């Protein structure tokens, strides 16, 4: 177990180093001068030069990489070119929206997908199964921004149950904050829930056809008992993988949704920063997202070991 853990940890660290290199180099080639963007149409050359110096845009690539990567290790993500505030602070603030949103969507999709998937699998071939499968097919096929648009039209403009967007802030109370995240979370959760329900179902069906289910039935367990006691935990492994992968989609895939609902989250920050050539923010956010994905997948791997004892000693 410890060896397995250490091995995974090392490959995690290596991945992060490679990722940081890739991100930094990729953004080095982005054309566009943040200083020019900030000063606009009538700026003069010398003004630009002054600003570029202030921003630390002069210096070799290697120097700048180590300055950036080294800073990040110390938790110092640098200063935003446009906002002129520490990037770490900005990200920290945005995370208070993006992270709860992603978690909210994840919880929603899990709450929908698990029962739906289990129900469909246990009633394989029935009308219930066909319905769940049909709905999830639609859920996967609907572009989520389109769905979000429709939801705003119905729930915010016509029914006025929710506000059309924006975030009231955590100061407004937990319930109010959650309410203002509900429509975006549903928009994010729908396709994820559909995928998850489908994976849950097919994984359960796979495990239900395993020999040990027959063994369990021969012991006198009913179909339902066999499903809950024996199939479910075994079926969880592919489901966990998907949940791990979804987390990254939820963090980053929120870009469009955050735009539709004008939420000041990470997605919108990075989208704006790309157009403003605020590369240091882009680099840091991408790095953070990659870090999050890698760590989440690491956690998922570790979760496998909890679910599946074989992984604790093998490898």
């Amino acid at each position, binding site marked *: 177990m410890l060896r397995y853990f250490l091995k995974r940890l090392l490959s995690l660290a290596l991945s992060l180093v490679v990722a940081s290199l890739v991100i930094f180099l990729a953004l080095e080639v982005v*054309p*566009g*001068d*943040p200083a*020019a*963007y*900030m*000063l*606009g*149409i*009538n*700026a*003069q050359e*010398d*003004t630009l030069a*002054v*600003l570029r110096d*202030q921003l630390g845009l002069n210096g070799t690539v290697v120097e700048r990489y180590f300055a950036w990567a080294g800073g990040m290790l110390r938790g110092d993500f640098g200063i935003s070119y*446009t*906002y*002129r*505030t520490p990037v770490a602070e*900005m990200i920290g*603030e*945005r995370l208070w929206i993006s992270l709860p949103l992603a978690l909210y969507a994840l919880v929603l999709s899990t709450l929908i997908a698990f029962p739906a998937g289990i129900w469909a699998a246990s009633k394989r071939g029935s009308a219930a199964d066909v319905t769940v499968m049909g709905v999830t097919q639609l859920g996967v096929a609907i572009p989520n921004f389109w769905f979000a*648009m429709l939801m*705003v*039209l119905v729930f*915010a*403009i016509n029914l*006025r149950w929710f*506000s*059309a*967007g*924006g*975030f009231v*802030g955590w100061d407004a109370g937990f319930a109010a904050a959650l309410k203002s995240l509900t429509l975006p979370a549903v928009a994010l959760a729908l396709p994820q829930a559909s995928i998850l329900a489908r994976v849950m179902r097919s994984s359960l069906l796979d495990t239900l056809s395993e020999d040990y289910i027959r063994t369990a039935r021969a012991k006198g367990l009913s179909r339902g008992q066999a499903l809950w006691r024996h199939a479910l935990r075994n079926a969880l492994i592919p489901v966990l993988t998907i949940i791990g992968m979804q987390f990254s989609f939820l963090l980053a895939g929120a870009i469009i949704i955050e*735009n*539709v*609902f*004008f939420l*000041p*989250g990470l997605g*919108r*920050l990075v989208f*704006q920063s*790309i*157009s*403003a*050539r605020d590369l240091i923010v882009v680099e840091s956010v991408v790095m953070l997202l990659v870090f999050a994905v890698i760590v989440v997948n690491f956690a998922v791997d570790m979760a496998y070991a909890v679910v599946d004892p074989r992984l604790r000693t093998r490898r």
Partner: protein
Amino acid sequence: KSDIVVALQLEPPHLDPTSAAAGAIDSVLYSNVFEGLTRFASDGSVIPGLAASWEISEDGKTYTFHLQDGVTFHDGSAMDSADVKFSLDRARAEDSANAQKALFDGIESVEALDPATVQVTLSEPNGSFLFNMAWGDAVIVAPETIADIKTAPVGTGAFKFSNWVQGDKIDLEKNADYWGAPAKLDKVSFKFISDPTAAFAAVMAEDVDAFVGFPAPENLPQFEADPRFQVLVGSTEGETILSTNNKMPPFDNVKVREALAHAIDRQAIIDGAMFGYGTPIGTHFAPHNPDYVDLTGMSGYDSELSKKLLAEAGFPDGFKTTLKLPPPSYARRGGEIIAAQLRAVGIETEISNLEWAQWLEQVFKGKDFGLTIVSHTEPFDIGIYARPDYYFQYDNADFQKLMADLAVTSDPAKRSEMLKQAQETISKDYVNGYLFELAFPTVANAKVMGLWKDAPTQATDLTAVYWED
């Protein structure tokens, strides 16, 4: 009700109006938080600001400003001539990051004669000096608070800055010690909603009380039909033009440019891209300006004429060029329409949609474009045609001389005459395709009073706004 939520499309990158081009900074802070010696009134005229009055010397080179009494910054310190000198000197300094440094070009010296009097000496007379001083880039700041201006701006306005949730909103609150007529609202929130759909939804769901510079003209009729809302469609200083690279063949041929002008159906563009909002223009001048000449007749829509001109210029089968479009919808939609119209006379355009950063890089700095569409929102900016290195690269010695003369002319009648001549010159040279003057739509709750209708500068002056019962 004494608070208001005002939505804007763009969020300021920071809060120092004197060191960035971003109009969004002025949209929030101009006149609300920061004031200059002079200021724009809602109709665009220049009126006294922190300078209660002034004298201009005979030769037009020396301006003596008498400052208002009892003006204090939001931190409690008094605003005096030293602050004015600091502000102007800072803006024109060698290492200044002021985006409109040209405004201060003619200043030779700034002298604080006494705490309430400032004397500015110009190297040569400048008819637009008072106008220049009204810009957001020329507001008066205090040396004590300059270090934190980008995040915690301290000005003299009727509102003071209270809070900024980046990416979301900026809050202002009433300045109880304001020297002039106090603001009627206690609290103001600026919310930033860039997506047009989100903007529509936010107004419809009454999440915001007003949207200044509403980005989707197609939605305005709906708001107009809804008694909950009022729609103010004002004028702007934004001449929306089909900028043409005058140095790039075949656009270096005036015949080609003329053909271009006749190929364009302005009304179709205004209808199609702006849903009818916008005033056709035939030259680079704001139609609401008293000196404006209607020259749209010179470039009337006539595709047959256009084809003929192309043939005469040696392009009977048309040619191919690029059309580079910045993000605003007037450019994106207008671009599609223009591309279709040009195709009808044989000109094929390859459209590329650019972000502002790319547009600045490729078009504005790199001059790597055939055509582009952009709205020039700076007030009174016909002077750009006198700059041969400006991105559309119009080089006409006569015009340059005209502008040089204009700068030193202060007789209003003469100035008016010269301005008309300037408008005609560029129109006759078909420098760019002149499309329309951008409309400035504001959608607000029907009970909100005192909002500016027009946008003589990028400002959301809320000092006079109040709620009707």
